[in-house]
């Protein structure tokens, strides 16, 4: 590779796309300006230029003789490569064209535009045109498979539509739902389906990166941290090149789905990648009008991969989804989230019917040239392909043998991945820490919400800190070890206030150890490391404790005063993923509050964040949008997770018009503080969005708030009171737990009776509602009265008054009896 990679300015700055001709002689780029460029392969001469009438080109596809170019004005034009001139306008759309794809024989071109339908036009006779109309939203990408008989249409509704074009009338053969992300047509991130050259598999960037394997592979090798913007298989299918919007570029080995190389010298987001059909050259264009032709793209030791013959797609049940990075492995016959896979029913049928029973001619194009017998594997539509050579049926069950568990990723609460050249290292109620990638170094900025108390600061960071933790007292940073500079992982603590000249300190971790997550509290610093250790330091850098975490690898940690919660991967559950276990430790008293207890998460739900509330109770937020708080956690074995708020049931979403999720920041002042994420965003970005707070609402029942008539409103009011009662009881037990177990302040002690009164108030209102309903509801009313916590009798007296007011005399009598028995101590809580 050349010493310094230099881009060739091909077009005016802006989105640029490219395509190699199938014979590899020419490379065509299109961009925002009104010219196409035709580069000769292997020549450094100036490219030929085709001046065109359109500008803002959005897609290009080529054969050896001609190219097809789509533009934002909606035209799709065919240009001859023999004369370098325009031949004809194939089709005109009313809205911008987003993608074009040519079938391998160059006969048909599929056109995706912002219109709802996809047009498939014959390149020789533009009057022959097919319309694909099954999508409900505009289409972002189209992609022909190798045979040209199947077209994958990536729609902005997040579904991949598979059309069979083998007949005169195009047929929708499969909707692959939940594979790709819902993306707008004009974003850089891609949802394009990349067909494997052997035609049986395809790769697609996926929606839920949290569950995807890009993420997982990153754990080993640092793959993509943001959405994928382009992907291309090598001509023989042995390698896959992918680029992310975070300016990463990776090469993966198909067979093992291993990351071979990750390039970090990419300066702009790559929009299109294409491999040269024969040489070890890969070219890509970015959103800045530049073309990069990378010779010796695959590093020498792996170049052999390029010389081998056509490789089978990694179809051993799941490697396919592993490459497409979308599914976690399944052991049972459960509901498979990956639409690419066959349903359990299919598998059952196949087992019954034998290998040939379900075959379809449609997929006969596979050349089973190496006799590897891979053809009996399922293809992308979940159907069995024809078996030419008898195959090896036993291979079908291979997944059960090669199964390995899915481990939860480590993450740092409050941080976001790179987007563009910046990311948040920490975002909380004290302030926020963000860093900017300047290639050779980073610049870190710390800003505070309270500008009077602390002064914002900014520094140049040669260590490239990748984690930070911020609180009122100081800021903690950590960086990764680097093999090139022999730099070890470093923890760096910088207090905000000092009365000596310099109290910030750095400490190095032992060689080969990496910080996976860390946390800063008012009294200590906690770091979990890749070796499975939990390292605890004082605020002045004195190591206090080192111990090995029981459940490894560590996922995350959080701390509050002397309490430290560490979360790790425990044993493997029935769904093939590990159960997350947490441990809460009081490091000063050296007591375990909870040991290896389960982080209660539902099926297919991931942990989004762990933090302590302002009162010091551990909280978690999951990917389903539920906020849970840990109750009774100071007593070993008593802890339970109680939902505080299900953001999906909030009133603001009831209209269905809003498409938003929430990024948790804190639980403080009895409110949930978060950042609203619009659309499909998973993390907040720059500029810094506003913090929003929501009241807790325990999901007791779902009742629409905007009820129309009075009866509905009454019922809603009733449900509201019930929720209020449950919430007040929860807050009461949290407050009394705190007072019972710690040296509580007088304010905290005063809160318990206040909460008790809140509970009783809700009960009184419920009682009034029951009394209003009628005499026959008396039993329930008495039950409510018996739940009163107040021991002075005042509340029961009030209850009696309510009963009297509604003239429920029997109820009133019973309440008076209850009050009298309580007063003399006859009825205790246990008796009720």
């Amino acid at each position, binding site marked *: 590779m050349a010493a310094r990679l230099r881009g060739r300015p091909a077009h005016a700055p802006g989105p640029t796309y490219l395509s190699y001709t199938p014979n590899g002689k020419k490379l065509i780029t299109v961009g925002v300006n009104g010219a196409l460029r035709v580069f000769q392969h292997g020549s450094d001469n100036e490219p030929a230029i085709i001046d065109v009438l359109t500008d803002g080109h959005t897609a290009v596809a080529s054969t050896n003789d001609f190219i097809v170019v789509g533009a934002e004005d909606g035209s799709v034009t065919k240009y001859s490569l023999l004369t370098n001139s325009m031949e004809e306008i194939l089709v005109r759309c009313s809205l911008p064209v987003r993608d074009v794809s040519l079938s391998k024989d160059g006969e048909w071109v599929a056109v995706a535009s912002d219109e709802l339908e996809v047009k498939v036009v014959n390149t020789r006779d533009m009057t022959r045109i097919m319309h694909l109309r099954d999508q409900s939203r505009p289409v972002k990408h189209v992609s022909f498979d190798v045979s040209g008989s199947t077209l994958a249409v990536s729609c902005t509704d997040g579904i991949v539509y598979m059309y069979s074009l083998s007949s005169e009338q195009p047929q929708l053969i499969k909707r692959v739902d939940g594979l790709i992300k819902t993306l707008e047509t004009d974003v850089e991130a891609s949802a394009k389906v990349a067909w494997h050259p052997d035609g049986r598999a395809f790769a697609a960037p996926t929606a839920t990166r949290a569950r995807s394997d890009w993420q997982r592979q990153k754990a080993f090798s640092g793959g993509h941290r943001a959405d994928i913007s382009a992907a291309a298989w090598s001509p023989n299918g042995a390698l896959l090149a992918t680029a992310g919007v975070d300016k990463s570029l990776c090469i993966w080995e198909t067979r093992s789905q291993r990351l071979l190389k990750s390039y970090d010298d990419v300066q702009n987001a790559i929009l299109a990648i294409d491999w040269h059909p024969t040489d070890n050259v890969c070219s890509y264009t970015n959103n800045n009008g530049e073309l990069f032709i990378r010779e010796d793209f695959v590093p020498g030791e792996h170049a052999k991969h390029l010389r081998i013959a056509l490789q089978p797609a990694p179809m051993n049940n799941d490697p396919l989804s592993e490459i497409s990075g979308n599914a976690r492995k399944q052991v049972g016959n459960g509901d498979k989230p990956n639409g690419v896979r066959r349903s359990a029913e299919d598998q059952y049928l196949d087992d019954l019917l034998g290998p040939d029973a379900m075959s379809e001619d449609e997929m006969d194009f596979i050349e089973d040239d190496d006799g590897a017998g891979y053809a009996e594997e399922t293809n992308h539509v979940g159907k069995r392909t024809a078996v030419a050579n008898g195959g090896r049926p036993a291979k079908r069950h291979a997944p059960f043998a090669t199964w390995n568990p899915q481990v939860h990723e480590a993450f740092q609460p409050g941080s976001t991945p790179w987007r563009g050249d910046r990311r948040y290292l920490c975002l909380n109620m004290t302030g926020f820490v963000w860093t900017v990638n300047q290639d050779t170094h980073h610049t870190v900025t710390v800003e505070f919400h309270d500008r*009077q108390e602390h002064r914002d600061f900014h520094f140049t960071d040669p260590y490239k800190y990748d984690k930070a933790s911020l609180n009122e007292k100081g800021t903690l940073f950590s960086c990764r070890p680097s093999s090139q500079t022999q730099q070890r992982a470093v923890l760096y603590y910088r207090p905000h206030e000092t009365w000596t000249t310099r109290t910030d300190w750095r400490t190095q971790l032992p060689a080969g150890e990496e910080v996976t997550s860390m946390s800063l509290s008012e009294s200590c610093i906690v770091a979990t490391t890749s070796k499975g250790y939990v390292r605890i330091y004082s605020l002045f850098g004195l190591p206090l404790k080192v111990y090995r975490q029981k459940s490894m690898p560590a996922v995350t940690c959080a701390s509050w005063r002397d309490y430290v919660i560490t979360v790790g991967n425990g044993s493997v559950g029935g769904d093939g993923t590990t159960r997350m276990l947490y441990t809460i430790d009081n490091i000063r008293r050296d007591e375990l509050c909870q040991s290896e207890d389960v982080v209660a998460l539902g099926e297919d739900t991931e942990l989004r964040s762990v933090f302590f509330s302002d009162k010091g109770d551990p909280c978690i937020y999951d990917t389903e949008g539920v906020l849970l708080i840990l109750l009774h956690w100071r007593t070993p074995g008593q802890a339970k997770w109680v939902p505080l708020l299900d953001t999906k049931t909030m009133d603001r979403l009831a209209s269905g018009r809003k498409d938003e999720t929430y990024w948790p920041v804190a639980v403080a*002042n009895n409110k949930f503080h978060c950042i609203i994420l619009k659309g499909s965003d998973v993390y907040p970005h720059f500029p810094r969005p*506003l*913090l929003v*707070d929501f009241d807790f609402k325990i999901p007791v029942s779902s009742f629409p708030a905007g009820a129309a008539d009075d009866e509905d409103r009454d019922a809603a009011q009733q449900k509201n009171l019930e929720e209020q009662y449950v919430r007040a009881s929860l807050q009461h037990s949290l407050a009394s737990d705190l007072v019972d177990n710690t040296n509580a302040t007088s304010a905290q002690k005063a809160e318990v009776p206040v909460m008790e009164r809140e509970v*009783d108030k809700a009960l009184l*209102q419920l009682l009034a509602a029951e009394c209003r309903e009628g005499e026959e509801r008396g039993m329930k009313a008495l039950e409510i009265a018996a739940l009163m916590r107040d021991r002075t009798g005042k509340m029961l007296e009030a209850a009696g008054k*309510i009963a009297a007011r509604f003239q429920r005399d029997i109820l009133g009598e019973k309440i008076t009896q209850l009050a009298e028995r309580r007063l003399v101590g006859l009825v205790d809580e246990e008796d009720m």
Partner: protein
Amino acid sequence: MHSDTRWPSLSPPGLTPSEVGFLCEMEHVTVIPRQTLDGLELLGGPTGALKPPFPTPLPLWLALLLKKQRRANITPPPWLSVEALTQILDFETDERTAELFSPSPDLPPSTTSAPLEGDPYLAHDSLELSAPFLKDTATARAQADALPYHWLEIGHLLITHAPDDFEDLDAVRKLLRDLREVRMSKLRKGFEVLDAGGGVKMNGVGGMEIAEVRGFVGGVVDGLRWVTD
């Protein structure tokens, strides 16, 4: 007394626009403090302690003062967002609802249905609040799809004094101006039918809008009455 008989003829009846503008500064808005401040005991009631970054409701005048001193940011109320204003403007200009002004915020549930005497926890005053006295019409908790009584004044003040707290200032400014013009023309259309006994339905009209047309309408009606007499 002597002065009593003369005063009414000197000052116009009702509130002048500047008085309305002054009164609207008593409305609460939500601020995001940038520094700590203890609660204040004000004539209009105590204010909450300011602790960054917790949003706190404050009277508009105090919020503007803090904003000027760069001690706080003001969160514009939900109805002052581009989406909400667009929606309201659509309602105002829609053919089917062209006759109406967009409705004012929902009233709080009625409180006088079941008073319970002598009960400390269920007791409540029987005061039913309505338009100028509604709570939370300009805080972050305000209803998004309705213009409150003081919408024009608050919108104007926030745009002028806290422009950097808006996401899309120009769009908001433009929408506010459009809304004002649309509603003003509706009011004017109503005056075409004014005569001594005529009436115009003014549900949902804001305080400043009333103050602006009061002089004209009063004059016309009085003049007509004088003519017909």
